[in-house]
């Protein structure tokens, strides 16, 4: 099992579904629990997950997928251990789907090696050890939901009872409707049913809640938690930070085909800088601003100051305590895109490169 410092924050009693309070809780634990340091370990190797002797459920060893000059996946290395719930988090086009496709033997890596349960992906898939739900996975039309689930269940080496699957996936109410006459959210749940209709040890979900409304999304993750309670491993791709945050024990942040961060939700947010503060200031004193507490990133355009902060309260109080009176103050949760920019900027600095954030003033 993964033993990162911030893991306890996942089950923090104060935790609610509310993203705002969630950020605070997660960050606090990461800062005091040493999670922020553990994230600095070498996330490109297996070193951080040592101590378990069993073979990893999934391992990517320096895997790349190139389409001409486009590097969809670029030197990706990671390992998943049994029982983990892991989010693959990245913006659209980050290489999430390509990575999952390669894991599921739908695409071949240009370079590198992927293993599932110690064997090659194709045989792992064919032996029924992985149940998967793809964004691009279609359903057979002209049959009912029950007929389709029955068919795919029959194809599984270790099938679950069909009625139980229909209930668990929340599709029992419309089991006798035709597959091609369902709403987007219902279709997603049928895809989910196909992923859990057998006793697979690993569940792979690509953007599972894409077409779901907020309520359905909540129900989905409730049932998903029951699925993994028995010790199944879950890997899911998402571009919703909140979703990764609420459902995963561990988040892998990928962007432009590379793994940028690997840690608990608390660690990832602490690393990204959890809040963005922006205000106008008549006389901008850059050295002072750079010295602000909890500052992760600073951007100045004329009289507009934008700060990414891992503790927005502390940062803002320091500005006010210095006697400054900024106007148009806004404090917002950092969107995922910005979180990525922060992590990418950090990554580029670590590599001594001038990345896309070169036009910004970064500390």
């Amino acid at each position, binding site marked *: 099992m993964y033993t990162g410092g911030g893991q306890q924050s996942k089950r923090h009693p104060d935790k609610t579904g509310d993203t705002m309070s969630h950020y605070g809780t997660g960050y606090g634990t990461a800062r005091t629990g040493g999670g922020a340091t553990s994230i600095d370990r070498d996330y490109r190797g297996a070193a951080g997950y040592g101590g378990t002797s069993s073979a990893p459920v999934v391992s990517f060893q320096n895997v790349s997928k190139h389409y001409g000059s486009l590097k969809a996946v670029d030197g990706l290395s990671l390992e998943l251990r049994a029982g983990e719930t892991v989010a693959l988090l990245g913006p659209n086009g980050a290489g999430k789907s390509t990575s999952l496709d390669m894991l599921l033997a739908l695409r071949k890596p240009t370079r590198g090696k992927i293993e599932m349960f110690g064997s090659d992906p194709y045989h792992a*898939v064919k032996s029924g050890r992985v149940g998967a739900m793809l964004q691009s996975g279609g359903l057979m039309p002209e049959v009912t939901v029950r007929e389709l689930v029955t068919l795919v269940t029959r*194809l599984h080496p270790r099938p679950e009872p069909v009625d139980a699957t229909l209930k668990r996936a929340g599709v029992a109410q419309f089991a006798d409707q035709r597959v091609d006459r369902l709403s987007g959210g219902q279709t997603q749940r049928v895809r989910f049913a196909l992923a859990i209709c057998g006793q697979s040890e690993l569940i792979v979900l690509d953007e599972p809640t894409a077409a779901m409304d907020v309520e359905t999304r909540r129900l989905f993750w409730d049932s998903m938690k029951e699925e993994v309670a028995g010790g199944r491993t879950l890997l899911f791709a998402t571009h919703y930070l909140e979703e990764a945050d609420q459902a995963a024990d561990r988040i892998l942040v990928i962007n432009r085909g590379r793994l940028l961060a690997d840690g608990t939700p608390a660690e990832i947010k602490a690393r990204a800088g959890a809040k963005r503060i922006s205000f106008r200031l008549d006389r901008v004193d850059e050295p002072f601003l750079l010295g602000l507490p909890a500052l992760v990133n600073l951007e100045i355009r004329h009289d507009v100051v934008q700060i990414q902060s891992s503790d927005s309260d502390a940062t803002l109080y320091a500005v006010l305590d210095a006697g400054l009176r900024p106007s148009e103050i806004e404090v917002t949760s950092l969107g995922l895109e910005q979180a990525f920019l922060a992590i990418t900027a950090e990554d580029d600095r670590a590599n001594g490169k001038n990345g896309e954030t070169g036009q910004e003033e970064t500390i």
Partner: protein
Amino acid sequence: MSGTLALTKAELKRLMRNRRYFIFTVAFPVVLYLLLGRQFSGQHVYGVSFGAFYMVDMAMLGAFSGALNGNAQRISQEKKDGWIRQLRLTSLPAYAYVVSKVIVSMVTTVTSVVIVLVLGRFYGNVHLAAWQWLAVAVTVWFSATIFAALAVAIGYKVAPDQVQPITFILYFGFAILGGIWYPLSGALKTVGQVTPTYQAVKIGTDIIEGVSVSIGLAIGLVVWLGIFIALATFAVRSTAETV
């Protein structure tokens, strides 16, 4: 194998619900035969009565268009929708999808062939020995199945909205050049006799006439089967990463 069987059963169930599929495969040749089967009695084509020729002709038309049109469109749509992809995540072997499509196509074409032959016997007054009936049925059935392989190639390679014009051209091309619309003669025959549609119909009429079947015709059909299987294999392999 049991997985392939389960998939085939589900495919058949679907097909029973799809009436459009039966229009080209069954209704069209039946109606044509009822309209024209008795029109040219007394005339002979390829050495047999018009009624017998037209029976083999219409059986081939229904069977090959069923194997070609329906399958190509469906496979292309299912590839686009991602159903083929979804199946690749199951324990089914990679070939199971194509195999089940071909089996389903054989089940539908055998229906169409039997119906048209029965019509030939009782409406067209074609009288044959039992072995001749069987030989004609098997010939047409086998020849139509060749087109299921072509349909797989088109379905994998062509987007759903472009499938119809392509199958339309192939359908009319093979029907006209193969002498299905009008018996081949003259210059058209030199070109048309290499088509599998002509070869199938000519073998059928040769069996009815009771003359020995030219080995060239049989070889021709096998060559077409080889070509279409090669095309299908190429199409499936080359699209493996986009399915």
